[in-house]
């Protein structure tokens, strides 16, 4: 069975019908809602987004076994890669994590303080860890990548230090909802707790996709650039 992936000539609205999570990507590309029946290509050209790049991201977000060909990567306009990754980081750290934290604080304050303290501690550690991970990427990897894009060779190779820390970040975030719905007393703020669980699951799946973008787009792209300069 031939799997059909997204292409730039499809209507953006149809793409979102297939995977509604893509709606969360639009702000990261600077695309507002209200795009009517325009194709992804048309919307992109209106907001100065490289359509071939955006369609790859949508495909990685939607189709688990989607692979980008090296030729495609070489030809693609990658000017938005770093701004896109940065925008994702902001969305996680400035919008989702504070929102989740606020929920979690309220719930932690309503259960036995013994449990509450542990949960708060877990989440504080997690936020610190993810902030540190993003800081490394933003201060070290992204500037290096931008240099590479301009043909400047970095002092150290970048391709080697990615995957492991990602897996850990995703595992931890996945553990949190399980702990909450399996082991926290169920009679405390049930509606808010369920909302919290959904928010965490949503964020966790987004970060997982974000890691996939780095594995399937960022890393191969870096190695293409590094080979070109070697």
């Amino acid at each position, binding site marked *: 069975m031939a799997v059909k992936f997204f292409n730039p000539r499809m209507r953006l609205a149809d793409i979102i019908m297939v995977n509604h999570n893509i709606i969360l990507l639009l702000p990261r590309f600077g695309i507002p809602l209200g795009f009517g029946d325009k194709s992804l290509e048309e919307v992109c050209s209106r907001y100065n987004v490289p359509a071939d790049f955006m369609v790859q991201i949508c495909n990685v977000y939607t189709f688990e076994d989607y692979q980008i060909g090296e030729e495609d990567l070489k030809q693609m306009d990658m000017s938005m890669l770093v701004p896109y990754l940065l925008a994702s980081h902001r969305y996680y750290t400035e919008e989702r994590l504070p929102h989740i934290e606020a929920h979690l604080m309220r719930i932690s304050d309503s259960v036995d303080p013994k449990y509450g303290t542990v*949960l708060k501690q*877990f989440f504080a550690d997690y936020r610190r860890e993810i902030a540190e991970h993003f800081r490394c990427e933003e201060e070290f990897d992204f500037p290096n990548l931008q240099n590479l894009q301009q043909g400047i060779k970095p002092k150290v190779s970048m391709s080697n230090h990615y995957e492991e820390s990602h897996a*850990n970040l995703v595992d*931890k975030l996945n*553990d*949190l909802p399980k*702990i909450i719905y399996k*082991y926290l007393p169920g009679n405390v703020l049930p509606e808010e707790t369920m909302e919290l669980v959904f928010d965490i699951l949503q964020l966790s799946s987004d970060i997982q996709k974000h890691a996939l973008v780095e594995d399937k787009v960022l890393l191969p792209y870096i190695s293409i650039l590094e080979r070109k300069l070697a």
Partner: protein
Amino acid sequence: MKALVSVLVAEPSEIVCEGLKTLIEASGSYNFLSPVHQLTGLYDRLEVIRPDVLILNPVLLSTPLNPDVCMSPKRQLTALAQARPSMPIVALVYQYVEQSLLHQFDDIVDITAGRSGLLNVLSSVTHQHTAATEEAMPLDTKESYELSDRETDVLVLVAKGLSSKEIADALHISIHTVNSHRKNITAKTGIKSVAGLAVYAMLHNLME
């Protein structure tokens, strides 16, 4: 997506096999395995390809399953059923078959049955079997999800931040054993990260 149910057909006629293949594949819910035309060697195939359902022409039971052993058709059918107990065996009938032999099958498809007759039988035998396993599930879970004493010891040390090597030394067991306990702990609790396991241990009052 749900995994497709694999169907193996044992039937001497290639024409009949092709017909079954067309009807069964068109439904989209089954994986039609490459059919066999004789019983000899079927034992090995069962082990390797592990079909979910076997559609068998009872006529084949008169030919030996194993050339060195002579068994009655009924005994051969019993042997097949025992070789893979989770696999229902459906008789494909288009000539006279002794009633007592037919009774031994899980279900029967007559060659004159249409597409829906065939698919109904398939879904009913496979459904029967999934229902049986689902019913058994909750009984299994209660015991197997509880941490053993040793696993609890390991969990507490993991939660305290010790490495597998340090835990092995503390409990006087091999690092290999520690890792296998850690695997079981994660399988049972569903929690992968050390920080998550620490929370688990706290919530279960395992930490002083």
